[in-house]
């Protein structure tokens, strides 16, 4: 019995719309529905893991080679189980947290519906991402996670901090996702297929692998593209918990794992990733050690821990995939529990920094114990799942020499130091402030996740099998047991000693980390990002000021360079010598008259001062040109020209009616600046000469032997049409029409948005 791989994905993707639909009718029901939908997705993933699954390959747009390929292999199973399991914990937590959160900010309760739907969309996107077997699908879900995270981080849209954090996350992960797409397209060009399996079998394209790796580094918040993650904790706590443990950030290392053969085959890229991973471990660990916010400590720690995973994947070798996958699993469980615990602490005490909490252990013993287990798991203490993640890390590092081992030990010691600091500052010491009891639904998920962390430490077999299956290319079994006499065990003991030393004598490390933080604030990548954003804004504002002055300033920068460039091209290619003005036949006389009237009306328009007069004379230009089209045997164009001219004139007159009469009179009386007149004359002569030269040059070229017009005329009857222009618009060049009307619809939205905004 094999479950189709599409089933869990479809269930997960259906969860968000279902919750939104139920919430639209009955807002209070959204939260329980969200929990139910997440649980169903989780059970579906477990069932698929247990029963095995058949890959799905459905045609999507076959004429473009697009297919819906999903496969639920070992790697996908691990991430899917983690994603949905944490989703269940987070949605349960959110049922209590979100109403409190909205209450604190005095926002209507109904906004909770949006929250639950978005969290589930996040889950669906992540599940789609991990099961996608097609590069384009992978990209699609990759971007969906970025867009969803944008809305979730900016959930408190009244707060400027949340909005700028969301924008930062979207810009950093969204701009790099373009590189991801470029990599995907390169791989398709190289192998002729979007199927990931084909890519993995076809050797590597280093450029494509590098592009994808950059996007993954940004997504997994690795140095130097890490700065968005600590800001993203402006999001409500359940979002942070999910984003840091199983969604979004995990997507980066997931893609590195999925495409690992491509990266392993490019040695320079592997080295670069190893350096990035090692630097991220150090930077994240140091900053976590001196951070003061409850969530800030955890956010920096996430950077460090995905640094481990990046390092593991970059080192490669026998156990790398298994170790990296197991690491993500263990970290996801521990980190989500810690974030949820931090949120519960803040809800109980109202404090969100380590300095303002303390001694909570006696007052919240259950939460203290559960958080302690989760912190121990993150720090890699025995009897928790975390011990094995570190053991696997050391095992891989030992295969790659002393430097890798030293980095791993240092990173693990730092982790032990800051998790100890985190837990002891909150729960030990003298009591600080008051603490109100919180709902079971805020502590329950923490306890459940801590139980998983503990069970994984006592009986690691199922999770070890899950991780072993993740390395589908070379299935291997990995045994996880407690041994006394092993190098890995010895390294763990070293970590404990060094970590304990850091906790007991924190000042030297504090000084180093503090100096580092200062330097980062002054010249770090976040500063660069802000400077770049600022400069772009300033440039755009300056451009807008020039452009907005009046219509002439808007047209001049377009026409002047165009005229000069076209003139240069005509001279340089000698094209002006081939211009043939031709002769005017007697049959052309009506046409000549129509065009002359248009020209005369154009000159008259420029001389009018009263607004209504300008509108009417201007319409004469259009109607004369419409007559010219009619004389040239183009009834379709003439019809459209007449209609457009009518509408435009009506609009002009209508717009004039909206202005107060005094404003119009003042405008009429005002003399234009002296110099401007000659500038305008020069510009219009230049533009006219440009149009004339281009038209003459085009029309005096040799007539092609089989012009496309002939083909259109021949084919129009075959397409069931007798009027060629109509057939061109709806059939031959229908895609152009489609594009244009899409632009029209977008312009409509723009018009409405601009006009509905109240003037201050």
């Amino acid at each position, binding site marked *: 019995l094999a479950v189709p791989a599409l089933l869990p994905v479809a269930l997960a993707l259906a969860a968000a719309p279902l919750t939104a639909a139920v919430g639209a009718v009955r807002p209070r029901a959204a939260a329980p529905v969200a929990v139910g939908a997440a649980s169903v997705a989780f059970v579906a993933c477990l069932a698929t893991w247990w029963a095995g699954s058949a890959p799905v390959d459905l*045609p999507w*747009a*076959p*004429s*473009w080679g697009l297919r819906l390929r999903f496969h639920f292999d070992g790697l996908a199973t691990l991430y899917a189980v983690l994603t949905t399991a944490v989703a269940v914990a987070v949605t349960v937590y959110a049922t209590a947290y979100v109403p409190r959160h909205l209450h604190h900010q005095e926002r209507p309760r109904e906004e909770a519906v949006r929250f639950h739907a978005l969290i589930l969309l996040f889950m669906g996107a992540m599940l789609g991402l991990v099961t996608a077997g097609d590069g384009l699908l992978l990209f699609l879900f990759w971007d969906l996670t970025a867009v969803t995270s944008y809305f979730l981080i900016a959930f408190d849209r009244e707060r400027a901090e949340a909005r700028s954090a969301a924008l930062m996350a979207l810009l950093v992960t969204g701009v790099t996702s373009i590189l991801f797409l470029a990599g995907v397209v390169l791989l398709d060009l190289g192998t002729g297929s979007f199927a990931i399996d084909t890519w993995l079998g076809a050797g590597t394209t280093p450029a494509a692998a590098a592009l994808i790796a950059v996007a993954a580094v940004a997504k997994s918040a690795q140095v130097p593209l890490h700065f968005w993650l600590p800001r993203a904790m402006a999001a409500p706590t359940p979002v942070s918990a999910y984003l840091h443990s199983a969604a979004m950030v995990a997507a980066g290392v997931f893609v590195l794992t999925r495409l690992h053969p491509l990266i392993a085959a490019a040695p320079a890229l592997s080295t670069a990733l190893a350096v990035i991973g090692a630097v991220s471990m150090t930077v994240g660990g140091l900053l976590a050690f001196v951070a003061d916010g409850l969530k800030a400590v955890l956010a920096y720690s996430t950077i460090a821990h995905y640094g481990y995973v990046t390092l593991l994947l970059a080192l490669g070798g026998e156990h790398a995939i298994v170790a990296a996958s197991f690491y993500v699993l263990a970290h996801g469980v521990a980190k989500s529990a810690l974030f949820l615990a931090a949120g519960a602490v803040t809800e109980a005490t109202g404090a969100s920094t380590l300095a303002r909490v303390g001694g909570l252990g006696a007052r919240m013993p259950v939460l203290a114990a559960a958080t302690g287990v989760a912190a121990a798991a993150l720090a890699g203490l025995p009897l928790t799942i975390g011990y094995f993640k570190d053991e696997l890390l050391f095992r891989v590092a030992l295969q790659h020499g002393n430097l890798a081992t030293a980095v791993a030990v240092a990173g693990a010691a730092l982790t032990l130091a800051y998790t100890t600091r985190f837990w002891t500052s909150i729960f030990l010491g003298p009591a600080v402030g008051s603490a109100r009891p919180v709902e079971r639904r805020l502590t329950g998920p923490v306890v459940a996740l801590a139980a998983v962390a503990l069970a994984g430490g006592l009986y690691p077999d199922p999770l070890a099998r899950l991780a072993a299956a993740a390395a589908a290319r070379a299935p291997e079994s990995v045994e996880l047991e407690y041994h006394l006499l092993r190098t890995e065990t010895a390294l763990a003991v070293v970590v404990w000693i060094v970590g304990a030393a850091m906790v007991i004598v924190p000042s030297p490390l504090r000084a180093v980390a503090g100096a580092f933080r200062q330097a980062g604030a002054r010249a770090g990548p976040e500063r660069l990002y802000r400077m770049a954003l600022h400069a772009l804004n300033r440039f755009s504002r300056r451009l807008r000021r020039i452009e907005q002055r009046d219509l002439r300033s808007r047209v001049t920068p377009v026409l002047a360079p165009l005229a000069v460039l076209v003139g240069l091209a005509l001279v340089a290619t000698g094209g002006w010598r081939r211009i043939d003005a031709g002769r005017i036949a007697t049959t052309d006389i009506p046409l000549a008259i129509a065009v002359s009237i248009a020209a005369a009306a154009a000159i008259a328009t420029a001389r009018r001062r009263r607004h209504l007069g300008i509108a009417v004379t201007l319409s004469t230009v259009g109607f004369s040109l419409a007559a010219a089209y009619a004389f040239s045997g183009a*009834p*379709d164009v003439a*019809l*459209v020209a007449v*209609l*457009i001219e*009518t*509408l435009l004139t*009506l*609009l002009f*007159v*209508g*717009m004039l*009616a*909206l202005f107060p009469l005094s404003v119009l009179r003042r405008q009429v009386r005002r003399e234009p600046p002296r110099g401007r007149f000659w500038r305008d004359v020069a510009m219009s002569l230049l533009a006219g000469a440009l149009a004339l030269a281009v038209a003459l040059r085009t029309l005096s070229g040799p007539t092609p032997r089989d012009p496309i017009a002939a083909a259109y005329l021949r084919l129009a009857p*075959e*397409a*069931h*049409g*007798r*009027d060629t*222009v*109509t*057939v061109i*618009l*709806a*059939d031959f060049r*229908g*895609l152009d*029409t*489609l594009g244009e*009307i*899409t632009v*029209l*619809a977008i*312009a*409509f939205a723009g*018009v*409405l948005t601009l*006009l*509905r905004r*109240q*003037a201050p």
Partner: protein
Amino acid sequence: MTGLLTRMVARLLLPASLVTALAILVKGYGDTGDGFAAGAVAAAGIVVQYVAFGGATVERLLPVRAAHVGVVTGLLVALAVGFGPVAAGLPLLAHRPPPEAHVVRLGTLELHTATLFDLGVFLLVIGFTVGAVRALAHAGERS
């Protein structure tokens, strides 16, 4: 307020423009004019009403409030005709019935997906023009 003559002519123009638009729409795929022209004719008829009678009266008498529905429906219809064939493995905008197949006619109206495409364009153009004019009129009343 506009003059009596303007209002009388405007009133006469409304049915005339709507009937003309309908005629252009159903006149068949083979003759001059298309969805864009039909949409522009009908929209011009309605815009004249705005100029002659003012926004409040038009809002009361004509269903102009549904303009955005026209834009969205028109775009969706056109996109469906355009991309529908892709889902069936055909090229973009592959119209049905295909070349040389028989086309059912109801009078001059041909039952052909190109006509449907034109209908989408018509809806979008009329929706766009009327909606934009309506928004302008509202903005004018506010200021």
